[in-house]
Each structure stands twice: as structure tokens, then as C-alpha cells.
């Protein structure tokens, strides 16, 4: 399976901003943040189409997201994920004494995952409870 | 010699500025046990958290405090000490030897961030790794380490020697980014690799990198190739590229980078 090394960015989008104000449980919100915006040429390289699921892996975790074509091209080998519970799973928590984790420019790997499902918010939070609590 | 054994595993930060030869000296084990320390927001005594064993010193020996057990949540050990020894057998938490004026601290394990920050004199030796901001200044201040030695046998983190003014930091292993940021003077000697941005915004002082460095900041200019470089009394064999910077700050710091370990920097030679 092809794998692509990218520099991962997270950030705001207007849809995420709107979705957030509509409520974290709204469909608008989760739809706006379970995506991974990629350069079309990178998608071609991975052999995936719009909305194919991909697995994004960093040193700190992995998450399945929907790949979408970025409207702001070109940005080869740069992938963008809006802020949200999904992006948080793979962020770099190290602050190097600054209080600030790294949320932009994290080295990551992307691979196609057409058969894996994007976690629902419920399932995602369920994973948190596992450690130590009922 | 006083030996401290933690009675249990600490979960919240413990702050024990009193673990310091200057404070312990002339005190009986009983008095030492009543010294106040903080566990989170609770006031405790040293005796609450540590078993304290007093052994009579041989008269020739310097006053020594030995800590056996996990003190990786105990901060400010040896802060402001001016004499004697502290030996930590295990890991130590942040601010070890902060504002230290003399004496020797030895840690057999790792030490966390701000080790030796604002220190004025004395020696800190870490057998394991160290965290970030080693020998740095307090937030907002430009008064970093102004004397003494910090020797780290393992790796060190980011912003080591931030606003450093004098003294020596020696790292046997690798170092993170921004070593010697805003450095005013003094020496940072790195035997391993640097993650980069060494010497950023330095005004003066010396940084020696014996290993690999991914790139040199564009605000440094190449000055010379030197066969060896002197670090305190020690001669370190090169050859080294010598860069000068940080020019963005009008600095005149010297950054020595091994030539053999960094063939990708050879393009700088055309500017010589």
C-alpha cells in the first residue's frame, strides 16, 4: 500500500467555526472536522479519490479521516486537518518547556484506509474512559 | 551525611527548597524532619514525606545529602545552595540547583527542566538526560546562568543556556533546538548532535557542536575553518567551521560546527 510522508497542519476553517457554534454534537460540526485536506497530486499518488478514508499516523497516535481535495493548492506533502477531537488524537503533546504542544508542522504518514471507519464522537470518547474508569 | 528516603510515591508536585546543605548543616535529624515543604497545596514537613537517616561524617568530608528513591516529582532540590554535596540516586524534578552559588550536585538518573537556572557557581552533574531550559533565566529576565558548570552525560532538551552569561554547559549526548538562545557569554559544548537553530539571537559566547547539525541559521556568517577549538582548558580536535552571529541581533557569538560530520555545509566554504 502506498504511504505518503507529510507535514501535518491543524487549524481553523470557517466551516469548523460555524459548526462549533451550532454545537459540538451537531452533524455540521463533526462533518467539518473529520476531514483531511490534501493536495490533489498527493491524493493521486496514494491512489485515492475525494472522500476516501485515510489513516493519518504520527508518533503520538493514529486516526481515520476522510480525505478531501484542498481548494488551496498547491501544497505538496502538506496535509491539513481542522481542530477537533479527531485532530487531537495525533497531535504532539510535547511543549519543550513552553506550555504549548506542537499542532502545526508535525511529521506524519498518510495511507489509504478505504475499509476502516471514521470513529464517531461517542466511540472516540469511549476510548478515553477505558483507562482506569468504568 | 544525611540520607533521605522518600516514604511513598509522590503524585502531585513536591517543592523542597529546604533540601540544601546550607539548611541542613548544624541541624539534628530531628530538626531536619520538621523543615517545611509543600506537597501540592498542602504544607508538610520533610519528616512526613522522607525517612531521614543521619550518619556522622568523617571530619574531612564535605557536608553531603544523599537521596535514595524516586524524587522525580520533587522540585528545587539544592536551590540556592552554596556548599557541600547533594547526591540524587535516581531522577530529580525541575529547578534542581536553581540559583546555586557553590557545591556539587550529582544526579545518577535524569534531571528535568530548569536545572541550574540562574546558577552563579558550583557544579551540577547529570548522568542521565536533562530537560529544557538548562542554565536558563527566569521568564522575562535576561539573567541566565552566570557561572559554574553543568555537565550532562545524556541528552539535553530545548533552549539550553537561554540568556546564559558565563560558565560552561557540557552535553555528552545530543541537544534539542535553540541551544544558546539569547546567549550573552559563556560556553556550550555539545559532543553529540544538535537539532538545529543553535546560537539563535546570541550576542556573544561560544557554542561547539561536535556532531551533526541539520542547518545553520541564515543570520550567521562563515568566518573560518579551525583545526581545533579550546573549551575551557580542553582542546577539542576538529576541524570545525567557525560561524559568527547572530547578525540579526548584531551579535558576535562564535558557533563551531564539526566539518567532518556536516558535509552538507561545505557550500559555505565558497564564502570564505
Amino acid at each position, binding site marked *: 500500500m502506498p504511504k505518503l510522508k507529510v*507535514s501535518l497542519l*491543524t*487549524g*481553523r*476553517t*470557517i466551516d469548523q*467555526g460555524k459548526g*462549533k*457554534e*451550532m*454545537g*459540538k454534537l451537531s452533524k455540521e460540526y463533526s462533518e467539518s472536522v473529520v476531514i483531511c485536506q490534501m493536495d490533489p497530486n498527493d491524493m493521486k499518488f496514494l491512489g485515492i479519490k475525494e472522500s476516501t478514508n485515510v489513516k493519518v499516523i504520527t508518533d503520538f497516535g493514529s486516526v481515520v479521516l476522510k480525505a478531501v481535495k484542498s481548494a*488551496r493548492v*498547491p*501544497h505538496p506533502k*502538506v496535509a*491539513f486537518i481542522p481542530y*477537533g477531537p479527531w485532530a*487531537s*488524537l495525533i*497531535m504532539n*503533546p510535547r*511543549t*519543550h*518547556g*513552553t*506550555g*504549548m*504542544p506542537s499542532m*502545526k*508542522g508535525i511529521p506524519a504518514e498518510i495511507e489509504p484506509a478505504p475499509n476502516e471507519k471514521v470513529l464517531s*464522537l461517542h466511540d472516540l*470518547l469511549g476510548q*478515553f474512559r477505558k483507562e482506569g*474508569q468504568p | 551525611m544525611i540520607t533521605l528516603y522518600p516514604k511513598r510515591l509522590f*503524585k*502531585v*508536585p513536591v517543592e523542597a527548597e529546604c533540601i540544601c546543605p546550607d539548611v541542613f548543616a548544624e541541624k539534628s535529624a530531628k530538626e531536619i524532619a520538621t523543615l517545611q515543604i*509543600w*506537597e*501540592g*497545596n498542602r504544607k508538610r514537613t520533610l519528616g512526613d514525606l522522607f525517612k531521614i537517616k543521619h550518619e556522622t561524617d568523617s571530619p574531612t568530608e564535605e557536608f553531603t545529602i544523599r537521596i535514595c528513591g524516586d524524587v522525580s*516529582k520533587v522540585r528545587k532540590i539544592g536551590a540556592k545552595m552554596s556548599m557541600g554535596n547533594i547526591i540524587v540516586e535516581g531522577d530529580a524534578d*525541575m529547578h534542581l540547583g536553581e540559583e546555586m552559588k557553590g557545591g556539587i550536585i550529582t544526579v545518577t538518573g535524569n534531571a528535568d*527542566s530548569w536545572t541550574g537556572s540562574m546558577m552563579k557557581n558550583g557544579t551540577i552533574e547529570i548522568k542521565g538526560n536533562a530537560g529544557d531550559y538548562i542554565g536558563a533565566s*527566569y*521568564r*522575562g529576565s*535576561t539573567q541566565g546562568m552566570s557561572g559554574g558548570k553543568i555537565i550532562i552525560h545524556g541528552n539535553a532538551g530545548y533552549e539550553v543556556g537561554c540568556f546564559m552569561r558565563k560558565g560552561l554547559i557540557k552535553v555528552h549526548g545530543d541537544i534539542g533546538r*535553540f541551544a544558546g*538562545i*539569547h546567549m550573552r557569554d559563556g560556553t556550550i559544548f555539545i559532543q553529540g548532535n544538535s537539532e538545529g537553530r543553535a546560537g539563535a*539571537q546570541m550576542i556573544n559566547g561560544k557554542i561547539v557542536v561536535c556532531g551533526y547539525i541539520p542547518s545553520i541559521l*541564515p*543570520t550567521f556568517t562563515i568566518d573560518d575553518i579551525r583545526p581545533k577549538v579550546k573549551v575551557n582548558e580542553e582542546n577539542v580536535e576538529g576541524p570545525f567551521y567557525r560561524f559568527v552571529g547572530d547578525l*540579526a*541581533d*548584531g551579535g558576535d557569538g562564535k558557533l563551531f560546527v564539526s566539518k567532518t560530520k556536516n558535509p552538507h555545509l561545505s557550500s*559555505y566554504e565558497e*564564502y570564505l
Partner: protein
Amino acid sequence: MTVVTGVTCPVCGTFCDDIELVVKDNVITDVRNACAMGAAKFLNYSTHRNLRPLVRKNGELVEASIDEAVKRAAEILVDATYPILYGWSNTSCEAIRVGVELTEEVGGVIDNTSTVCHGPSVLSIQDVGIASCTLGQLRHRADLIFYWASNPWSAHPRHIERYTMFSEGRFQKSAWRGYLSRLGGIMSRKRLRRAANLVLRRDVFATPEVERRLPYSMFQKKRKMVVVDVRNTRTAEAADYFLQVEPNKDYELLQAFRMLIRDEELDVSEVAGVPVEILEEVADVMVGCELGILFFGVGLTMSEGKLRNVDAALNLTRDLNSHTKFLIMPMRGHFNVTGADVVFAWQTGYPYAIDFSHGYPRYNPGETSVIDILCRDEADASLIIASDPVAHFPQKAAQNLVKKPLIAIDPEVTPTTLMADVVFPSAFVGIEAHGTAYRMDHVPLPLKKIVEPPKTCLPDTEILQRILHKVRKLRREQN
């Protein structure tokens, strides 16, 4: 039906105060002047909300009375030896004032969302200082506007229109018309390209060569906008010039500019993927402007270099003041994150990450900041207000947060309230409760109460006061 004017918008740091709301029977039915985010908030704020306090019993969140929830929350805080009280940037200064007092009372750590947005900026301001201003100053005077690693089009949608390029000032005119004509050009180029793609059947979209000269408009004596970013954003499209920087290389680029401004020469041919010729031209434009402003976003604080990226940016603008007037401002995200910093500072001396465990304020981000405390698993309880760390903190921090007793005060249902042990549904400040908040440039403005909240949803200020009162009572009983 009534129309309420001059409403402040409790969403982003732009904190527009010209919103008009149409209210009918205690319901907001229409929003004027707001951006998409603001309109979404005013029209949908109450769709996903809790109406009653919740307390976790046997693993389940169940409805409780406010008194019961207050008691449970107070017990958690009194028992804790190192609690964190986090959030604050989406509530009023009045609530934050009580929050600091509560933290002091329980000997905890108080931190606001600066810690994960512009905290590093604060750290470098403490090293360098900052030459800044209020936003109107720029509307009247700025002729060179930089947006560096920030994308106002998405994050602060009305920023450009209200304060910079498209605003009309006393000494500087709006650049709206120029943009419209340029936009026409961009659109037709895009159309042409698409047609070419179809006809030639090959991708003309390939990375274009970096041009070696700035566009003509950059040398004209008029308002101009430069965007520096790792991606070609919507904002970048509206700019006179877009400078694309390689990810994690902002520091090098900023420092290189500083050198050029000192008339030093670079030993390299390009920096951060940008040819030095271009840098020299941009530096000339900086030096030659009447009044320049550099807005920077979290693109600087969250990427490699963090505080030092900002350090370089602050130094760059400071250096430029020996040639012209040049100012700089962080683009603050939440509508009152500035207020949280401000209130913390006047009560404690420090703007965020303040540790009260020894009875007085102590400050050392990296040690007393909430991400570090959570990653080291040191906190034994937490109170989260008006923030959603479970959704936005790195996994390890979020996991350690939910492991320990967690109190959440939030008008909305969020991942954090879902995972909490005590939940207080609050009134939406700026819609259902009044107060004060600070715009990103430190201008304080009133938050208005437009409609009545549900009876069971108290304002944040009152919830916190009740908890504080109960904490004091419990502590008196203990002694």
C-alpha cells in the same frame, strides 16, 4: 419584535460590536452585520444544551439540583491537592475575577486558553516587549498590512473589512476597489487555466515558478497587504502579495528579514524556500511604508520554534521602528481570551498558567501550564469553564484530565461536559448574560444580555460564586 443594536459578538477576538439582532418572544430571529460564525452562534446557540445540572453517579450523569451540584463541586475542589481551573476565554471578565479568587481559595492552578494559542507570544513579549496599538489606529494609518501565519478570512472573518485593508480611515483609504479589480483578474486566470486543462489534457496546475519580482502594486503609494503562510489561504488570495514559507521555517525567514533591515548580507541564496531577491524587495517595502502592521496567528506559536518565532517577529517590528513606524499584534482567537490574560494579570501579576498552591501567585509556563501538568499527570481534579479541552488537547493530556474528578461549566454540550463528573449548564454570556470582554487589541467592551436564559441556567459568575461560597464553608468546617 424588537431590534437590539450595538451588540458585541461573543465568538472571535475581532469582537465586532455593531451587530443588530431581531428579537421576538425571547428568541433571536434575525442577525445583521455578523459573519457566518457570528450568525451561526446567535441563531443556533441553544440547540445543543443541557438544561439541568448533572452529577455522575455510578458512572452515569444524572440530573441534580443546583445545590447538590455545587456541593459536589466544592467537595472535589476542597479535597484536591493540586487542582487545575481551566478555560475562561469564553466567559466574562466578571466571571474570571471570581475564578481567580476561587483558585486562590482552593490553592489550585489557573490557566486560560492562551496556553494553547498565544501563550508563547506572551513569553516572547516578556523577553522583547511589543510595539502595538488599538485596531482603529491601523484603520486610519496603516498602509502596509502583513498577515503572517494567520488566516483572518476563516478565523476572524470581519477583521479585514473592519480594521485593515477594506476599512476607510482618516489618512488611508479602503483598498476594496483595487481588490475587486484584482479579483477579476484572478478569476479569469482561473477560468483560462481550467479551459487550458480541458483543451491540452494536461495539468497546468503544477507548482508555478516562484516569481523573482514583486507585483507592481507593492511599489505603489497606497494600502497594500502581504500574506505569509505555509498554504495559499483565502486571505492570501486577497493579498497584493503572497509569500509562501516552508512549514516550520518562519523563524529563519523572520530573522533573515531582520538582517536585511540592518543592511547585512546573507550567505545563502534562499531562506525558507524564498529567494533572497524577493526578501530584499519585501524588506524595502517594509522600510518604505508610512505605518506597517504585522498581524500574526497561531501558525507561529504552534509550529516549530513557537515562542522564538514570535520573538523574531517582535524584534523585526521593533527594529523597523528606527526607519518608520511599524507595529505588531497577535490575532487572538476567542472573544475574551485577551480579557482572561488581562484579569489574571491585574489580580496576580501574571497573564496565564498561575499556580496558587503555595498561597500566592507563581508563574512558569512549561511547569505551571495546564498541558504540562496534565501530560505529567499531576493534577488530581479539575474545573473546566467555557472551554472544551477534551476535544482540543492532545490525547495524552485529555486522557489524564478525564481520569480525575472533573467539573464542567458550559452552556453547551461538549465532549468535555460528556466526560465530566459534575456539569453546570450556564447562561450564554453575551446573549443571556451581560458582562465585559476585551477585544484582541485590549479594548474593553460590554457583553449584552439580549434574551432571558432558561431558569435553570445561571450565569457563570453566579455559579462560580456559589461554588466559592460553599468551598469557604467546607473549609471553615474542616478547621
